[in-house]
């Protein structure tokens, strides 16, 4: 989409940003380059969003391009489909992932199906940004991780960043993509990485390499996983907040695990997954979402279909429990260090 060549990450100066600032930066850069990009959503205009992701954008680009919307997700996504049919590139915000359900028909039956049903006459280059996940005392309606619902829909892409650096590059790629993209932002790590120890002081992104964000334009292709750290003892497939929790647990246990941040669930970087599992022979899948029919089930199935003869132990799945996200007991729900640690031990102790 951009005329200019992407800036090489090695050359671009970086600066420390938190994930909100990185997302804001991506939106700013894309709006400056493409006059067809519009942002709408509840509280995104003058106020700049309840998490401040769109702060300053209305002032800079005007009310015609950044505006508040009625509290109606069906209308937000439905209007975005119409705007896309006109030729715009809408980037609506759904204030919490938990609020997206009233818009599902417009998303699943319409946005995701336009290209197919019209044989390419109409497309829906829409990026829906939405904060998701728990660990912020949001209760059951501000904590959910509904990504599996969207990976199940033909025609939708699902992207989940785990660092400010990735959030910016992936969001730019999502906006440039000509298919509808669900961009889930793990709100627990907006302000800093989270190691799963909720009773320890919070960290900021300042000391984390993923918090160093290059200036200017760059994109990270959808469908390319990131190897967080190399290792040989097991492969850990993970995304979002849980990347950091997994990293901390394996570090603490001194396990030489290979951690793969999937970044995009659809399309999935299966090549990276297979390569790693073939090397390590063991696989641990982690997500914060509920367990049954979660995306972990898809991952476990794919790994056993394609890497079965390399596996030395049953695939382990660590997830949230199959309950609504409870307010006071959210840390009992959260797949924290103890739950992950148990699974790691089982894998390490498995007879091969």
């Amino acid at each position: 989409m951009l005329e200019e060549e992407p800036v090489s990450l090695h050359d671009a100066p970086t600066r420390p940003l938190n994930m909100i600032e990185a997302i804001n930066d991506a939106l700013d850069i894309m709006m400056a380059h493409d006059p067809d990009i519009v942002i709408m959503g509840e509280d995104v205009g003058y106020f700049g969003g309840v998490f401040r992701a769109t702060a300053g954008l209305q002032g800079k680009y005007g009310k015609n391009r950044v505006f508040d919307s009625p509290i109606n997700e069906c209308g937000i996504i439905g209007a975005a489909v119409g705007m896309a049919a006109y030729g715009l590139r809408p980037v609506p915000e759904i204030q919490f992932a938990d609020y997206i359900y009233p818009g599902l028909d417009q998303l699943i039956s319409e946005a995701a199906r336009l290209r197919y049903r019209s044989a390419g006459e109409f497309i829906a280059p829409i990026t829906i940004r939405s904060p998701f996940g728990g660990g912020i005392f949001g209760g059951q309606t501000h904590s959910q991780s509904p990504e599996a619902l969207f990976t199940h829909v033909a025609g939708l892409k699902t992207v989940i960043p785990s660092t400010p650096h990735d959030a910016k590059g992936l969001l730019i790629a999502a906006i440039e993509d000509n298919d509808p993209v669900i961009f889930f932002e793990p709100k627990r790590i907006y302000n800093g990485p989270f190691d799963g120890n909720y009773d320890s002081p919070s960290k900021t992104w300042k000391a984390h390499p993923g918090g160093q964000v290059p200036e200017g334009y760059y994109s990270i292709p959808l469908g390319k996983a990131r190897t967080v750290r190399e290792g040989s003892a097991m492969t850990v497939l993970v995304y979002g907040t849980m990347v950091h929790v997994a990293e901390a647990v394996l570090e603490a246990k001194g396990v030489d695990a290979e951690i793969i941040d999937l970044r995009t669930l659809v399309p999935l970087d299966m090549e990276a997954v297979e390569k790693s599992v073939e090397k390590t022979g063991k696989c641990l899948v982690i997500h914060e979402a509920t367990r049954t029919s979660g995306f972990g089930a898809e991952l476990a199935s794919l790994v056993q279909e394609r890497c079965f003869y390399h596996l030395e132990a049953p695939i382990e799945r660590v997830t949230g429990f199959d309950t609504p996200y409870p307010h006071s007991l959210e840390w009992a729900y959260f797949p924290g260090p103890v739950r992950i640690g148990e699974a790691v031990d089982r894998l390490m102790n498995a007879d091969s």
Partner: protein
Amino acid sequence: MTEGPARSGKLRGNLPPLEFYVPEPRYRPGDTVDYSHLEIPEAGTAARPDEACEARETGPLTTGLIRVLDDGSQAVGPWNPNLDPETLRRILRMMALTRAFDDRMYRGQRQGKTSFYMKSTGEEAISVACAFALAEDDMVFPSYRQQGILISRGYPLVEMINQIYSNRADKLKGRQLPIMYSAKDYGFFTISGNLATQFPQAVGWAMASAIKGDTRIATSFIGEGSSAEGDFHAAMTFAAVYNAPVVLNVVNNQWAISSFSGFAGAERTTFAARAAGYGIAGLRVDGNDALAVYAAMEWAANRARANKGPTLIEHFTYRAEGHSTSDDPSAYRSAREAEEWPLGDPVMRLKNHLIALGEWSDAQHAEMDRALAEDVRAATKEAEKNGILGHGLHHPFHTMFEDVFEDLPWHLREQADQAIRERRTKWPEWKE
């Protein structure tokens, strides 16, 4: 003692138990039909406010009925659009063509040439007259019964039939149920089988047109039945909030498959009256009167184009035939309803008006019908060269996996390979 409201039923006294209410239509199969309860005002009696008026000034028009053609086939009153005879003949011709097309496609479905069809019999004035009142490049977000718009805009009948047959020339590659056309070059959005989704989409398109400082407006059509969907409320709210240049149409044809309009709230008020709650203009129009429909759409389109905001139009009409080829209305409604519909047949009413003007004759009409039937027959023959449904002349097999995404991801590539293997197993000689 606890404070606060009483916890027992002692405040209820001797009230009878609550009664649950389920609407019931007036007539069921075999019943005689009496439409005397319908208030049908005389043609020409509705006032026509300025197109730039305050929305609330349209209040009386949302409960009345805008009518232009009177019982003597004259065009009367302030809503008379004063169309020249040549335009009237073109509108009549497109309505007759729509009907001829519907009849032929219905028979084609019965002959096994396709799986499904939906006629618009009795509702031709709505789609055709609206198409004439709009600019050619205004964007239409249709439901499944606005084929008259596509026909009026000159979309080739052969393309429509290719789509209905899902044959190898079908531009939609055989993916959509028959009649779910998509024609971007004709300002006609891809039809969805999910009801009312097009309503907020039309508003979004109109918002985009206004954002870009364009001059084009959008319009959308839903049935009265699907006005019950949340999408209706979403569309009306967004249209009102952003003053969107959009005309939102509810085609009230009394029946949603077997559910009468009472299940969408028609026993309480008109559909046009809902406009008042959103503070937008509303019009209720005799949907079987092509001139009234034209005048209402022209009014609303001019209003939208002048930045005066959206309009909700209720087209009061009657679904003269089944919901679709899969439906048998004799199982749930009186056959007398269509025959006795007090607003008559839209084609005959416009025909009689032209005859009354001395601009048309029965003989000319019969000759037009004959010629149109021949045109449709010729288009059908032409389309059949590309195949009919289920006879092998469909789109190449591999196209099934295209257009899910812009690019084919690995999982779909693998599934495409699987599908091709299955095909080769079943038909070893198969080549594409």
